[in-house]
Every structure is written in structure tokens, then in C-alpha cells.
């Protein structure tokens, strides 16, 4: 799962908070809103395959910046 790959990179950062922020920022900057929404929904349903660090980052991202200020994914 790609989110875990992102998490694996940022896990090397010196501090936990820095790693969480790094993951959240990356998702916000590079993932299209429908993908972010799916990820947030996945975490809301338990996020079973996601590493704890990534789950925390996804929740941080969802809290700070709701996915997509303008919805272009749905009809």
C-alpha cells in the first residue's frame, strides 16, 4: 500500500511529530482529493493494513485540511 511506503520514508525522520507532519503534508500536496477521501474513509473503518504512524498522519491531514476544497471527483 502506497501510504505505507510514504510512511516508511518519513519514519526515518528524527522526531515522531515531524514524521506525522511529513506524511500528512505529502498526502495533502500530492494526492488527488478522491484518493485522500478514500484513505480517510479507510482509516475511519479501522485502516487495518496501515501502519500506526500513517493512520495518525491521515487523521492529522483530515483534521487540518478536509480533502478537496472543491469536489471534482463526483458527478
Amino acid at each position, binding site marked *: 500500500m502506497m501510504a505505507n*511506503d510514504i510512511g516508511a520514508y518519513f519514519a526515518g525522520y528524527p522526531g515522531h511529530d515531524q514524521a506525522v507532519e511529513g506524511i500528512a503534508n505529502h498526502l495533502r500536496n500530492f494526492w*488527488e482529493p478522491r*484518493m485522500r477521501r478514500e484513505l480517510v474513509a479507510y482509516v475511519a473503518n479501522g485502516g487495518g493494513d496501515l501502519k500506526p504512524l500513517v493512520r495518525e498522519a491521515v487523521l492529522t491531514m483530515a483534521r487540518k485540511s478536509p480533502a478537496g476544497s472543491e469536489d471534482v471527483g463526483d458527478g
Partner: protein
Amino acid sequence: MRSRADSDFATPLRPGAPTVALEIDGRAVAVPEGTSVIRAAAQAGIHVPRLCATDSLEPFGSCRLCLVEIDGQRGYPASCTTPVRAGMKVRTESPALARLRRGVMELYISDHPLDCLTCPANGNCELQDMAGAVGLREVRYRDGGASHLHAQKDQSNPYFTFDPSKCIVCSRCVRACEEVQGTFALTIDGRGFSSVISPGQNGPFSASECVSCGACVQACPTATLMEKSVIELGQPEHSVVTTCGYCGVGCSFRAEMKGDLVARMVPNPDGHANHGHACVKGRFAWGYTTHPDRITRPMIRQSIDQPWREVSWRDAIEYAASEFKRIQQKYGRGAVGGITSSRCTNEETFLVQKLVRAAFGNNNVDTCARVCHSPTGYGLKTAFGTSATTQDFESVMQADVIMVIGANVTEGHPVFAARMKRRIRQGAKLIVVDPRVTEIVRLPHVDASHHLQIRPGTNVALINALAHVVVTERLTDEAFAAARCDPHEFAAWKKFVAEPRNSPESMAPVTGVPAASVRAAARMYAAAPNGAIYYGLGVTEHSQGSTMVLGIANLAMATGNIGRPGVGVNPLRGQNNVQGSCDMGSFPHELSGYRHISDEGVRASFDAAWGVRLDPEPGLRIPNMFDAALDGSFKGLYVQGEDVAQSEPNGQHVAAGLRAMECVVLQDLFLNETAKYAHVFLPGSSFLEKNGTFTNSERRISMVRKVAAPPAGKEDWEITCELAAALGYPMKYSHPSEIMDEIARLTPTFSGVSYQTLERLGSVQWPCNDSAPDGTSVMHVDRFVRGKGSFTITECVPTDERTSSEYPLILTTGRILSQYNVGTQTRRTLNAAMHAEDRLEIHPSDAELRGIRDGDWLRVRARHAETRLRALVTERVQPGVVYTTFHHPESRTNDLTTEHSDWATNCPEYKVTAVQVAPEARSAQARAAVAGA
């Protein structure tokens, strides 16, 4: 023969030296010290007759035609090998010189066919010119004596002939092969009158080491080495300077024309990227542009199981637009997107992303750079502040240690490689990091000091090990790092790489590289006055591609190898306009000039210019588009100049995604593999049929000039404009220069770029703006674009693609010199014969284990797909690794490659796929055994 349009000053320029004043034929002349007398004369407009001298080669002094008289000097020295001296007085004409030159010419012509009227060089032959220049009126020695007049013509090369009967043995071809190309395929065989030019071991060109770069053909002063196209068409009558449409070197060419037919392509001596050199693709492989397979009428079909139907442009454009509108109405604004091409111009690419953002109203635009250098974009932006090389190509000539990582330079970037080889022949040291023994590892006069033959997928482990040595052995440039980089990040990085787990000894079991070799290579790079890193897709096309780019940037900053000529981080881009397509805002998260779509100020400038309100959210990347198509939320795609069905990994997944879409609009030259899934085909224009610009690997923007009409009547930018208009968003330009003007208005790093600038300078490297009106050759000189250089922690995370007992071999993929990308162009040229099929390279020990012999047909099986390839048993690959190319669609190489991708950018991991290989017969037996059981 070089182009008639280009001046030839007989010997190379000696720039930078103090000026020397002398007198030639009574004229005062001032030239740099070290300049030859013949060049000094040429610069003063005095043309001394010559045959063996040309300004692309060092002087040789063999033809004895350029003799001059010099006051105070005995005899008649050759002006090509005599350097100027202060106060020298030179005479280039006298009765004695005229007699000597006529005598020399008479001897040459005594052994030369007198068939000028039917000779293909007639009208552009230096021998003919010199006979006229020296006033040759008779030849006394033609009858009865020995001659070479009946020597057999060698026609074995597909693109040029070698006619030894016309050869004057001036050695220009031999020297061009050595000095310019560095292949050493030619030599002089025999002595005295018996001297002949010999390819390889006196065999035909096709059996020699010749790489068909054509440098010898260009250097030849007679018709001895002659393009077959000129033999067929005759001498060209006009020429146009343009830019090659193949690799990221971006060579400048003079397209020499007869009417609207290309007679030949001659590399431009004034070209800043190539300095008059070329490769087999750029110089010779342009025949695809007139291939009968070209589609010249727009076509549509309602579904992909129907045959194509030719329609008018208007019908095709209206149908495409109506389908996109229908899809957006039904499935949402985000249900469509576009893919720009690295083979198209900057202007065309800019327009496609503009269409997507402004007419589609979303940011679902991506480019084929996604699958090659997107990690470069991410990594270098993060570390330095901009997504591009730090240097120009010329910088390599000041490098003392050159580290080539994951780049097969002689195959992928042959013209730049020729320059790199020249620098190595001058004494620069070479370190190669590659799983294969690529050609650059060992060549005539090139011998890598270290070849770190890593296992595929272990780049980050290796770069960390190199950094470990640099840090723990105190080889860092502390002053540079303190002044130029973030101190906290530098300290954290040093602490990380110094951990024992990153030592070469700890990493040796991972990388497969002996620790001592890693230590020696690290010391060599760090100790070099100038250390330069060049890298290619062997770095980026990994699940840790971005991490590796960051690791390279860390190493360069830590050793102070940034910000001056001779050093730097140099990504070698694959296709001609990869850099440009990225610069132009083709990525879904960025506008032109690498500015994030969420930046309100930047967006506002585009909103105002385009009269729309841009979506602030990033759009879908290419792999996301196929995933979304299979999810049912993405239904329409506009693809300009890209064959995603053949070039993307996990081809069956891509095919399923394309099949799930309701409207795929393909704009291309040929019905490629993607066309099988397309509903609208819009016939595009080749690089010879349009105006625009390309940006090469060194950020160099060069003009592309139209030399022939597009067979379907429209340049690609015009097609995009018509589609946008049909979508209800008119984009009005009368010429691509107006598109560039818009790019310049909206992009700070391009604000000084215009067609006038390009005409004035020939080409320009961005940033080009008020601060750098003539462009920027070396970036980050006094400060990084982002301010302080950023060090990042590059933890080594193994790829999820693992070998197993069932899939014990790692397949890695790459390219070959004569073919280009998926072969759409080069397979439709005579290059096809040079690489008629993709072969699977396998080490002799792995072959023996499986009973595989060279040439056997093999089943190559990955976890999700299999294909057939023939074996090439070779020690170029290490045990446990197999390798192939992807130039032929029937090979289905990218059916095998996986969906694993770079964590940051989704760049596919083409370089690591676990496979099993077996001879076909054995597979049949195994199947029979299973069936029997």
C-alpha cells in the same frame, strides 16, 4: 561532409588564452595564444588551401597543402600545425607555394576517379574545391601506375557508403572516430601507398565496432564516406537549423533539404548541446516521418471493437469534445484528464495542461515524465529548490571524478557520452554504479576505476554507505555545508549516515558490493577537486527513486560539489523534452515553473490570464487515472504523443483501465498500442513539421523549426487549440511564439525567454529572466534556489518486490543505442535492423542451470504475467539478474513489470521484477508433466 552553410576554421578554437598579434599577408591579426596559423588566417578571412584540417579535429599536418612562408623560418611549414607567435609575419601565397600545392594536388588526383559530374559530392567536395583553389590544370601520372581506383565500395552500413576509390587517406574519419566519438573503430591499415582506411579488422563497416554516429561521414572531405540519402536525392539546396526529436541531449541540427524532403541531417557545430556531433538516431533515423504507416486523416469509432472510420477534422474534434462533455456531465468534472508528451514541444505541452486545467476544469494532467524522472523533480526540488540539473553539459570537461549512477550513457545519451569519454581520456577518473557491466565501464581508453555492481533495488543502501565513509572519515566539506546548507539537517544527516548499520561493511550483504570498493570510491569522489554525479533511470525507476535522488543530493552537498563548473547533480533525461514537459506544468500538482497548485498567488495569476478559476487541489497521476478508470470514476482521456499501453508497467492493468474508459482521444503519428483502446485518433505532426521549442537535460531551450508540412495538415498545438475551442474554451494563437510569450509572462524562470531571445543566443538555459538575461549555465552558485540546501534522512527501505524460490531472478530493463523508447519511431527506420528484437540477457551460470543456450526462446514469467524472449547469454549481467529492453511491442516487456512504484511520485519500479526463466521446450515438458500428473 559538413554543411556548406557552416564555416570551417580548419583547427579548433583555443579560447581563453592571452592574445597574440601577428601579420598575415600584410594584415594585422590578433588571436589567442595556441591558435594555429591557418585558423588565424581563416579568422582574418584568408583561406589557406587544406584537406586534412577541419576545426572539429586537432591538427594533423598530413596533407601538405596548407604550407605557408614565415619570415625567419626555413622551408614551408604546415600552417595547421604551426602555432602563432607574437610578431610573426606569414605569407599564404607565393609562386613557390603555388607550385608546391599544385604538385601535392596533382599527386592526390592521380589516384582519384575523375567522375566529378556523376559523383554524389559534386558541388560539396573539398577535394574539388582545393583542385580549383590551387589552379590544378593537368595530372601527369594517371596512366599505367598502381592506383586504388578499382577498390570495392562498402555498402554494409544502412545509412552511408564507404568508397575507398575516392579516399585521399587524410585520416579525418579516423580522427573523428577517435577524438569526437571516442569509439576507435577506424584505423589506417598499411603504410605509404598501401595505406587504406580500415573499419575494425579490415572488414566491412557493419562488422566493425562502428556505432554509426556518422562523425566520419561528416569529417570526410570527399565522397568516400557519403550518406545514402544524398546519393539518392542529390545535394541539398537549403537548410534549416532545428533540434533533434530523440533523446534528452537535444542536439542541434541543420536539416538539409531538397524542397520539402530531408536530404540529410547535419549536426550544428554551433549547437551548444552537441557542438557538431550526433548519434545514429538523430543523424540518420528520421525516415519514420515519411513512413507509409503515418496516419494522415482523423478517425473515430464509437467503440474499440469497431473499425476506424476516417472523418473530417471538424467531425473528429467535435466528436471528441462532445464525448468529453457528455462524460463530465454524467460522471463529474474530474472524470476526464489528459497526458502530455515529452516528445512534443514546450508550447504544445503547455497548451495540453492549459486545456485540462481551464477547459476540463480539473488538474488531472500528467506527463510521461511520471514514469521516468518524476523522482528527480521531487528530490531536487526538496533538496535544492528546483527540479532540474545543476549544470550544463560542458561542465563535464572540468570534472576530475565522474560518478555515473544507473545511467547507460553510451546507449541512452550517446552524444553527451562522447564528451564524457573525451574528458576521461584527458585523465578524469570514472566510478560506475550499475547492476550491469555497461559499455562505459570499459571501452578503448576508458576504464572505470570502480564499478560498483550493485544488486538491483539497493541504490539507497549504496548511497548511504558512500555517505557513511565520507562522514566517518571526515571527508565532508564542512565550510560549504556550514555556509550553504541547513545546519540542523546537516547534523541530523551526519548522525544518521554515520550509524554502523549504514557502513559499507554492513551494507555489503544488501548491495553485493565489497566494502573496500565502496570505501575507495567514496574517498575518490570526496577527495576530487571537482566531483560530478550523472544519473539516469537506474536511479529513479525504483520504489525508492526519490529517496535515492535525495541521497545523491546529500552526498553532493556534503562534499561541496555544487555551485561551480565541473561538479553537480546531473540527471540525464530520457526523451527530448522531459525537462520541458515538467517545466511546463504537466504534473497534476504543479503549474509551470514548479509552483504548487495550492499557491493562491500563483493560481491568481493564471486565473487572471486564462479567465477561469483554477482548482486548487492536485489532480490524478497517470497510474491513478487507470486505477480510477477501473473504479468507474474516470472515463475520458486525451493523450498527446504517448503510448501508455506499451510504456506503462503492468501492461495488462493499463489495458484494462483504458478499456474501461468511454472516450480515449489519441493524438499521435502512428496507430500505436494505445490506439487499440482509442475512440478518436487525431494525426499529429513530427518534429520536422512544426515550430516550437524543446528543453534538454541541461535546461537548454532550443528552437524546433518546421521544414516540411504536416501530412495531416495541422501542427499539434493547432489541434489542441481546436479541441479546446470545441470544449467551449477558445485558445487563440497565430504562432507558437505567442504561446512562449504567455509562458514567459506566467513563469518567473522563463520571463526572459522569447523566440527573439532564442534567435539571438541560439539557445538558452533557464532560469532566463532579468537576473540572468542570457540564461544560467550553473545553478545554486552563491545560494540554493530554496535558500539553504536541505539534507534529508534517506532510510533504506527494501522494495516489496522480492525474489523467491518460484521467482528467483531479478529482471531489470533498459534501452539500446539504436532504438528509442517503445520504438514507435526507430522501428520505422533502418535502425530496426540494428536491434531487430528485444533479447533477455542472462548470466552463463544462470543459463547453464536452466539448460539455456544463446538464442533459445525463453518463457519469462513474473508473478502476474509472462512473455517470450530469446536468450542472450552474457557476463554483462551478474548471476541472479536478467535484463531486457522494451523497444518491440511483441516482447510485452512491460506486461512483466510490476505496479510497485516510488513512494513519493508513483514512478514505476521498472528496474526490479522477480521472474523465473525457462527454455520454451522445458516449459512445454513441464506443462505436459503437470497435465500427466
